[in-house]
């Protein structure tokens, strides 16, 4: 299953609802292009909803990290929402769990972005 992205805006925060697999190739490229597109449009508060992500490999993890640093370097914030157990475990193993700001509740996540 290829990765799909749906975008919505809530209180100034851009939420990317991702579904499918984030792997080397299509999924990673889709995230990269989507985040860059948001930054180009001046949308710097980005919430990646990973609730429907079924699989992520090391390339996908790397793409999340790259998205995080890209947004941060642009003066924005990128946070993660609704991690599945598999993604949660991978971020723990790779010690990235403490790098990302990870939320379980969408409303709380939106409220946590700087004004």
């Amino acid at each position, binding site marked *: 299953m290829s990765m799909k992205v749906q975008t919505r805006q809530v209180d100034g925060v851009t939420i990317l609802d991702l579904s499918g697999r984030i*792997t*080397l*190739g299509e999924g990673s490229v889709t995230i990269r292009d989507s985040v860059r597109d948001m930054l180009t449009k001046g949308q710097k508060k980005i919430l990646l909803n990973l609730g429907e992500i079924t699989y992520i*490999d*090391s*390339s996908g*993890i*790397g*793409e999340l*990290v*790259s998205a*995080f*640093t890209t947004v941060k370097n642009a003066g924005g914030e990128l946070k993660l929402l609704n991690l599945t157990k*598999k993604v949660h475990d*991978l971020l723990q*193993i*790779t*010690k*990235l769990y403490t*790098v990302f700001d990870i939320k379980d509740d969408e409303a709380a996540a939106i409220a946590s972005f700087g004004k």
Partner: protein
Amino acid sequence: MTFEVSTSTLPTLLLSAAGDAQTKSARTALADPTTSRVSFTLDSTLESVNKIEQTAEQCAQRAGFDEDTIPHIAMAVREAAVNAVLHGNAYDTRKHIMASFETTSDALIIRITDQGPGLDPETLPDPLAPENILRGSGRGIFLIRAFMDEVNFRQLHPGTELTLIKYRTPAQPGS
């Protein structure tokens, strides 16, 4: 109880997985009834990576690994295949990757071989080091080691053979 891989059905399954991914590749399937070993050769493409991952998952299921371990084995094998295609053969259509899956009474043994310039695992940076934690790549071998019981590299001049071993536990069927 002895776990037996059906040597009549498994090669068919794996050949089907290798399937029509690469019509130009030299595909072979070997079935040894004493070792339940299957191997095939694929082109250096992402589609091959997906096929190898699927085969690893099927072999792990047949070997009786539990539902938490099977995805870990599949991911480790996927990472090894990605390394072979991307870093080893650099998507070179003239080069192939070889994959073999051997189920013994003790373990599932997977070998992934590329035809690239070789890899010294000792030179790989630690992805957990603070200076590397935000790097966009370099976690593949780390994950392989995290999910498998043994990981061995062998230089082939040219090429690298990566052997991944996951031991079966007494609780698993057929052990």
